[in-house]
């Protein structure tokens, strides 16, 4: 089934009786060429690109719950390529290019909206840092425009420009940044993978990883044993538990990151806006809700819900930046479980076990990475060599200290990012 405007009109006129399920619900086979553990954004895009780019169609995605039920359905939907360090720059640049062709590629409306991101700054020092970051983005081939105070005022007249403590000096504008409909990204990749023959197996929890003579041979699941010579672990916040089945301890701590949404309002925030003096980012969904978030709660958690002090901090930052949002009623808050790495950057790499691959460490930023993460993870699993834009996402960089990707410059230890 292909989606098109004509199809929507025809179905609208004939009682919407012609729609079919977007993917099958297959029974697991006893053996596949490759298995992807985790049916979230990254796992589904990995399966999609394994099939599309590498012709591997005898593969399965094993998901313990339902497709897209984890972080890909629990984030603030921001898509951007505004990184500074080599290693991150080329990866996120590649991801943004994939986003720009994603809807056509998937024949699926992921509501990708390049409404622009403005990172505000509030001091001379921050302006210098923003200019330097903007130059790095331009060198990478992406777009960045340094806005002065009046330039920001034209675009975001509702900000508190004369705040006594945090006056606004300007902003770094990234026009190609924006948002996308998070669930639709998971669904689009799931449908695309399914159409190419990938088995998407839900309610199938992996309970063990079979290893013989240093090689992976398959997995044990709640729906029986499944053999495969290649297994990818793509489980974000649950990476520690899955890797433990292979006897591995990872440089990952799982933390809860909260997000918030208000009641639906008429259009008021046209871009993605971030505060430079407190961790706060906001955009408005197409449904009208103001969607915003801030820091993690800063303690290990698998609870998918946070505590009040962080909620207060985020809302205080928002009120400082744009006092008008105090008029909106908060509708919901929720939490996702972040796979926090010591340097704040991800890992896409082989493990010491042959045929076992690892994709983790996405910290705050997994959503925008979904296309490139799957692209590079599929390349790694199919060819056994890292893709050039993810070549620096090595697991051993913490041990050796070489090639650390500490974007914030705060150090490479847990609890600093």
């Amino acid at each position, binding site marked *: 089934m292909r989606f098109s405007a004509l199809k929507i009109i025809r179905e609208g006129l004939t009682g919407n009786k012609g729609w079919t399920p977007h993917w099958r619900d297959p029974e697991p086979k006893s053996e596949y060429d490759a298995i992807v553990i985790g049916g979230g954004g990254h796992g589904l895009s990995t399966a999609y690109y394994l099939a599309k780019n590498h012709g591997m169609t005898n593969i399965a995605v094993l998901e313990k719950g339902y497709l897209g039920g984890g972080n890909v359905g629990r984030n603030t939907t921001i898509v951007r390529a505004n990184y500074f360090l080599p290693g991150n720059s080329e990866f996120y640049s590649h991801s943004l290019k994939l986003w720009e062709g994603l809807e056509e590629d998937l024949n699926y409306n992921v509501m990708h909206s390049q409404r622009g991101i403005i990172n505000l700054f509030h001091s001379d020092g921050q302006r210098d840092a923003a200019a330097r970051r903007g130059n790095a983005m331009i060198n990478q081939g992406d777009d960045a425009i340094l806005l002065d105070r009046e330039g920001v005022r034209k675009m975001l007249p509702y900000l508190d420009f004369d705040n006594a403590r945090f006056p606004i000096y300007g902003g770094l504008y990234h026009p190609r940044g924006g948002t996308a409909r998070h669930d639709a990204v998971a669904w689009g990749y799931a449908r695309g993978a399914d159409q190419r023959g990938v088995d998407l197996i839900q309610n199938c929890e992996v309970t063990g990883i079979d290893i013989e003579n240093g090689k992976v041979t398959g997995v044990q699941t709640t729906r029986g044993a499944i053999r495969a010579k290649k297994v990818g672990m793509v489980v974000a916040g*649950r*990476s*520690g*538990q899955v890797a*433990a089945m292979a006897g591995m*301890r*990872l*440089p*990952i*701590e*799982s933390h809860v990151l909260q997000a918030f949404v208000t009641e639906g309002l008429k259009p008021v925030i046209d871009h993605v806006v971030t505060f430079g003096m407190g961790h706060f980012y906001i955009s408005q969904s197409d449904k009208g809700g103001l969607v915003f978030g801030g820091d993690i709660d*800063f*303690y*290990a*958690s*698998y*609870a998918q819900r946070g*505590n009040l*002090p962080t909620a207060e901090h985020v809302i205080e930052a928002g009120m400082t930046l744009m006092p008008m949002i105090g008029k909106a009623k908060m509708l919901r808050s929720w939490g996702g479980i972040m796979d926090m790495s*010591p340097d704040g950057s991800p890992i896409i790499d082989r493990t010491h076990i042959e045929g076992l691959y690892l994709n983790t460490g996405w910290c705050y930023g997994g959503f925008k990475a979904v296309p490139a993460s799957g692209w590079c993870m599929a390349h790694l699993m199919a060819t056994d060599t890292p893709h050039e834009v993810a070549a620096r996402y090595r697991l051993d960089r*913490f*041990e050796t200290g070489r090639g650390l990707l500490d974007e914030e410059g705060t150090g490479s*230890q*847990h*609890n600093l990012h």
Partner: protein
Amino acid sequence: MRINCPHCGPRDRREFTYQGDALALDRPDPEAGPDVWNDYIHNRDNPAGPTRELWYHETGCAAWLVVTRDTVTHDIHAVELASAVKGAGK
């Protein structure tokens, strides 16, 4: 979330700073080698369930605490002074 400080009694989470896994108390020998040190600094059990971690009573008595806490429910099962834990060799 409230933490029952052995010195100060039950206090709000806002008074405390989280440091991480209490394995930080088991500092390896300086000559233990790079594998042991890498494991100590970077690798974590990261359990979904009970865990022991270090919290600092920053705006209270400034004591370091070993808190046994469930990462799934956020329930706190035990709070001990880190100095006592270290002294007892636990």
